[in-house]
């Protein structure tokens, strides 16, 4: 009984005393927080505070050095969409936009060698959403930074079934597309019930759209609802400081 409780959770994701480190250097220590189905969690914090590292740990790309991450029932691999902050995609990689977006559908079809008609429809829909349908056959290496970001977002949307992890999704996007982006993420969350975990430096967007906030600085400085966060002293310090810039 005791043991069963230890490794299961009623939440979608539960982190218990999670520590992450690179070569013995701890970047995040003793993090406790939970993510529930339908949450819109915004992770904020300064540069180097361990946000991207935490995202990688949630994706099982990085192993915890302490504590544990427990996934709730029904959240399988291939149901999480992911937009990396930085990719080590080579600048000269030959791939068309539609090839990249379609590759987001792979996690689902476990043993089909080719893309199904449904996959293609899904990819087309997400390209439409991101406004990149007209460049579907253009080579990825010839795009601008913002266009690349949109392509990777469309790919993440193809992969997302229950949850989407976005590491600074709007960096490099123009204001119009940024707004559209936030609207779309909100729609995914509100209308489709998708869990959203987003890393952002944009405090105003964080408190506008998120339902929960996780503030990191080598450890969890705040975790709770947006409403509590706005009242907390840590928000005043950071958001206030932002406005002075």
């Amino acid at each position, binding site marked *: 009984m005791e043991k069963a409780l230890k490794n299961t959770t009623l939440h979608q994701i539960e982190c218990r005393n999670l520590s992450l480190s690179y070569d013995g250097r701890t970047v995040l220590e003793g993090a406790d927080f939970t993510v529930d189905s339908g949450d819109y969690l915004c992770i904020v914090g300064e540069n180097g505070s361990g946000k991207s590292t935490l995202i990688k740990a949630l994706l*099982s790309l990085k192993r915890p050095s302490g504590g544990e991450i427990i996934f709730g029932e029904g959240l399988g691999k291939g149901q999480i969409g*992911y937009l990396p902050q930085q990719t080590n995609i080579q600048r000269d990689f*030959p791939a068309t936009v539609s090839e990249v977006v379609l590759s987001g559908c792979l996690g689902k079809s476990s043993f089909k060698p080719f893309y199904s008609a449904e996959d293609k429809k899904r990819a087309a829909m997400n390209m439409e959403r991101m406004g990149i349908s007209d460049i579907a056959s253009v080579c990825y290496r010839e795009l601008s930074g913002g266009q690349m970001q949109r392509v990777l977002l469309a790919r993440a949307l193809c992969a997302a079934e229950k949850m989407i992890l976005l590491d600074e999704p709007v960096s490099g996007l123009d204001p119009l597309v940024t707004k559209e982006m936030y609207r779309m993420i909100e729609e995914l969350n509100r209308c489709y019930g998708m869990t959203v975990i987003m890393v952002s430096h944009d405090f105003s967007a964080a408190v506008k759209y998120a339902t929960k906030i996780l503030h990191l600085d080598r450890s969890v400085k705040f975790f709770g609802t947006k409403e509590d966060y706005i009242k907390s002293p840590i928000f005043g310090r950071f958001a206030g400081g932002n406005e002075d810039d």
Partner: protein
Amino acid sequence: MIDMLSTLASYFSYKFVICAFIVGGLVSLCSSLLGVSLVLRRCSMIGDGLSHVAFGALALATVLGASPLAFSLPVVVIAAILLLRISENSRMGGDAAIAMISSASLAIGVIAISLTTGMNTDVNSYMFGSLSAMEDGDVILSIILSVTVLLFYLFFFNRIFAVTFDESFAKAAGLRSELYKTAIAMVTAITIAIGMRVIGAMLISALVIFPALSAMRVFGSFKGVAVCASVLSVVCAFVGISASCLFSLPTGAAIVAVNAAAFIIFSVIGKVKRSLKR
């Protein structure tokens, strides 16, 4: 010209020439497909390292009196897994480690040879390829190999793309990228071990690199590059082997020279194509 063609046709009455065409063509096909993934992952040094290991293994097999292929295949496959691990581990300086292993195996091979036969024409053919090295067993093996590689590539094409394009995303989406990478490295090892005697140890890694690079000059889609690289590679192999017959050149050297010429042509085509677009 017609003269040359009829001379070439007369060569086809020799069994070893036909064998060389089959093995050379199939090995080129496989290595070009594998090369697309290796080059794009910046791992083409693995091919070079493996060919040197294969040379060392082949030389050792001769000394020990073992069957060349049966001895070198497992050695090269193990080396492939090792090299992959090393090249992933950037802290060790992947390229330096690969250079170390490949020169060490080359040294072992040369010592093994000089202890027995000494440097003779046999060694020359190990290094730069020869037409007459092929036997029935090699033909059957290379057919089995290339069918396997082709099926593997066709079946997992989209997954290979995903893993090559963005490994961490592929992993996050639940693809077992380690498995694909290990499979590609192992099949590359087998391809190299089989192709080594037609193409030669010093030159076979060119077959991994050249077709992919040439195709990348012209094509902008992964599918286009894969198809173009494999077709180009087979064409270059046939032209090279023909030249090798007609002018009695070392087979591997002839094939690589044709590949190099194709690369130059494709670079020019790519430049023209891009400037027309603007």
